[in-house]
């Protein structure tokens, strides 16, 4: 009897369990975002795009070409991220300060081997977006889907361009990889360099075709795709033309992973030219102010400029503001922090020699330092702060020291050993010589590098309207102009020149020169085009890549030392003189030939040996 009871009990429990367990667990998880939540609304897609844009390899104010400090974002650790680094206030770690545009905190050519940039995580995000969007045409409309797809192709090209100019050929991955796939499928081989650039070109063509004419500020429109294409194809063309002459041999070169056949050069030059031409009539140089100096300074500060094609924005409220103003000018003119990167005399002399020496070799005497700026091209004055210039009501009073009296030639004086020069120097700005301050509040001095080492300061992008009290770290919001029409005209001029179309190159360069306040050229050659580019785009993180793609970095930066222009006060004459001397740290910069390509990161080779052979000499 008892056993029957037990049996009944057991059966009922069993049946009960079976009946209740057959409820299907069919509710969507409430704690994760499903694809529909992201892709069915424009707001959802925008939030996804924000991450992709944030990580885009834009070489802006905060970019650290040496990789910078590690950082954690949303619990993910990034070591030497380069873009969006930790403690991103040190905006003086510029690539300009290893190329001789500036001298700065780097001890030499510290950025040649890169920092292991390998953005396949971000590329996966774009690939996911491209795979998902077409499934949501009903919710988003087909037109919206096409526009967003075009934007995604632009973004993917941007990431691949960031890699191609560093590594040459890289694995082209266009669909999100399945982590469960066999490892042989996940360990993808490198594609050829040529294929990588062709892919970038094709992606940007899709971007141009599918994107609208306009977009939100900070997002790409179709012309951003064309502009980037002109930049990328010019790079590829130069790799083909100059990289096939000056190269380091090795398996990666002979297999086409690092290097492009010379025969492809003209195809790429033509693609660069055609892409640049697409912007004609849609963008123009900024010329709102008739004062040419003020106008060129405002190119980098005024919103709504018809020159801006693609910008990156910053916000104090969102904790993304940069520190350009606080780290490019001396503490004397700011509320906090310090500067460490200074324009060289070598850069300034691109515009021609300054009239600091008389015909007999003696230094010219100036009543006031600011007289040096007379007759200087407006664009240069808007790019570099000269001795005697003013900012926020204060004067750049650069003075290296005092000569009680001065005789002889400038060359003879500079050639002397320092201890036999009869000048008075000082380790601080407080020291007086017969009641006269020995060194300026703005330097130069050798006690540290927070005052100029060259006699100049950077002016480009410095917001002169900001009151001194608010010039602090993480308080600068002026956007980085990543693509501007000025560059596109120079891309076009260079491509035209390489294709033998000098007339077109002359027209483009003279547009630039007129706006700059320079005398237009009557004739043109490739050297003039390249020099115009250096002058127009100084400090915009272009010249490092220009040196690389022209394959002249190992010649220009061969045990190179750079110069400054040191102002001195001659006491008995009550005059100023300027002497061209080595910058005060007299550092040496040598670009090794292997740096034309960076090494594939060793950690990635460890995960995927198919990335071998590494680039030559690594």
């Amino acid at each position, binding site marked *: 009897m008892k056993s029957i009871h037990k049996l009944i009990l057991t059966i009922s429990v069993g049946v009960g369990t079976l009946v209740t367990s057959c409820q299907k667990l069919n509710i969507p998880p409430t704690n994760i975002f499903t694809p529909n939540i992201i892709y069915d609304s424009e707001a959802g897609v925008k939030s996804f795009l924000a991450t992709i844009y944030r990580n885009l390899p834009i070489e802006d104010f905060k970019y650290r070409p040496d990789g910078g400090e590690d950082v954690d974002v949303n619990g993910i650790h990034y070591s030497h991220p380069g873009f969006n680094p930790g403690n991103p206030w040190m905006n003086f770690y510029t690539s300009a300060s290893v190329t001789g545009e500036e001298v700065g905190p780097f001890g030499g050519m510290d950025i040649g081997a890169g920092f292991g940039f390998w953005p396949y995580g971000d590329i996966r995000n774009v690939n996911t977006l491209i795979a998902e969007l077409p499934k949501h045409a009903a919710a988003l409309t087909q037109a919206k889907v096409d526009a967003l797809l075009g934007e995604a192709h632009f973004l993917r090209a941007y990431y691949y361009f960031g890699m191609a100019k560093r590594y040459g050929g890289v694995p082209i991955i266009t669909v999100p990889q399945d982590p469960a796939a066999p490892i042989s499928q996940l360990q993808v081989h490198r594609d050829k360099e040529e294929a990588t650039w062709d892919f970038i070109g094709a992606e940007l063509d899709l971007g141009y075709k599918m994107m609208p004419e306009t977009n939100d500020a900070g997002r790409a429109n179709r012309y951003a795709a064309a502009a980037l294409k002109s930049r990328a194809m010019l790079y590829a063309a130069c790799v083909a033309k100059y990289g096939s002459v000056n190269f380091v*041999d090795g398996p990666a070169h002979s297999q086409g992973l690092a290097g492009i056949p010379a025969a492809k050069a003209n195809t790429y030059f033509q693609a660069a030219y055609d892409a640049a031409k697409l912007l004609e009539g849609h963008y123009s140089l900024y010329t709102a102010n008739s004062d040419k100096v003020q106008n060129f300074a405002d190119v980098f500060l005024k919103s709504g400029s018809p020159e801006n094609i693609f910008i990156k924005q910053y916000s104090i409220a969102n904790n993304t503001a940069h520190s350009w103003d606080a780290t490019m000018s001396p503490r004397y003119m700011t509320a906090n922090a310090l500067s460490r990167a200074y324009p060289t005399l070598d850069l300034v002399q691109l515009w021609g020699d300054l009239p600091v020496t008389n015909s007999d070799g003696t230094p010219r005497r100036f009543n006031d330092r600011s007289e040096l700026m007379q007759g200087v091209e407006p664009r240069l004055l808007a790019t570099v702060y000269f001795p005697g210039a003013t900012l926020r009501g204060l004067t750049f009073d650069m003075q290296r020291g005092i000569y009680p009296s001065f005789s002889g030639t400038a060359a003879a004086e500079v050639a002397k050993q320092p201890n036999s020069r009869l000048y008075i120097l000082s380790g601080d700005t407080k020291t007086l010589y017969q009641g006269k301050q020995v060194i300026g509040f703005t330097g130069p001095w050798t006690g540290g590098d927070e005052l100029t080492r060259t006699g100049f300061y950077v002016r480009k992008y410095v917001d002169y309207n900001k009151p001194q009290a608010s010039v602090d770290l993480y308080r600068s919001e002026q956007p980085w102009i990543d693509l501007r029409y000025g560059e596109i005209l120079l891309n076009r001029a260079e491509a035209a020149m390489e294709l033998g179309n000098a007339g077109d190159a002359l027209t483009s360069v003279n547009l630039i020169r007129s706006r700059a306040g320079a005398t237009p050229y009557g004739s043109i050659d490739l050297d003039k085009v390249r020099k115009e580019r250096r002058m127009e785009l100084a400090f915009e993180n272009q010249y490092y890549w220009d040196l690389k793609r022209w394959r002249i970095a*190992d010649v220009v930066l061969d*045990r190179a030392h750079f110069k400054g222009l040191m102002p001195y006060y001659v006491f008995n004459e009550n005059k100023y003189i300027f002497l061209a001397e080595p910058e005060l740290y007299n550092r040496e910069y040598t670009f090794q030939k292997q740096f034309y390509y960076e090494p594939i990161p060793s950690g990635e080779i*460890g995960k995927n*040996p198919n990335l071998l052979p590494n680039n*030559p*000499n690594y």
Partner: protein
Amino acid sequence: MKNLIGRILVGIAILASSACTKTDNYDGPNASLQGNILSSEGGNLLTSGGSTTIKLQQIGWTTPQTIPSKFDGTYEDSKLFKGGYKIVPTGGAFWPVLDTVTVNIGQGTKHDFTVTPYIVIKNFTHTLTGTTLTLTFDIDAPIIAGLPTIKDVQPYVNTTKLVGTGASIRDFSDLNAKTINKAFIDMSAAEKSITLTVSNLIPGRTFFVRVGVRLSDSFNSSNFSEIVQVDIPKS
């Protein structure tokens, strides 16, 4: 209470004894590799800092490591892991060695390489007049066809026996360089006979001096002369 403490101690003892039973049986880096980099023109290839290195790649690993050569053209690394390595000399002013050698490195392994230098410096002389040092030498090339362009020639002056690129006094060395930028085949006999001068050397000091010829190969590398000692008399 005593009982509890006893039990805890027993527990700790058990944990301690069971925790570290496995010993590291992997050999330390106790293998070594050394040898000479011989010049095909006789003797060792004279090198400098930042010049010739021996590149090693352990088989089964992806990241290569390097052994820098010493100035006399020898090299040694006594802290390597035992195993098979692919090795090749690179980075110096010699015709590229394309065949990597596979060597099984154990304790006291020796391996010599023979390389063909780009340029050989011959008849190197030095004459001191007052504080001015005059250096003369001739340059020759074992193989002329395809030789990289010669960039420049220069003296290297230092106060120690370690003298060469990256180890020299700039004012006496780099600033006395002579630019050539010419292919060897286009140089006349007179141009191949070179004189360099170093002036204003400091009286009462000893300097170590050599000369170098720099080429525009993949490394902008230099061939070097031997190192001579120069004593500047007190004035």
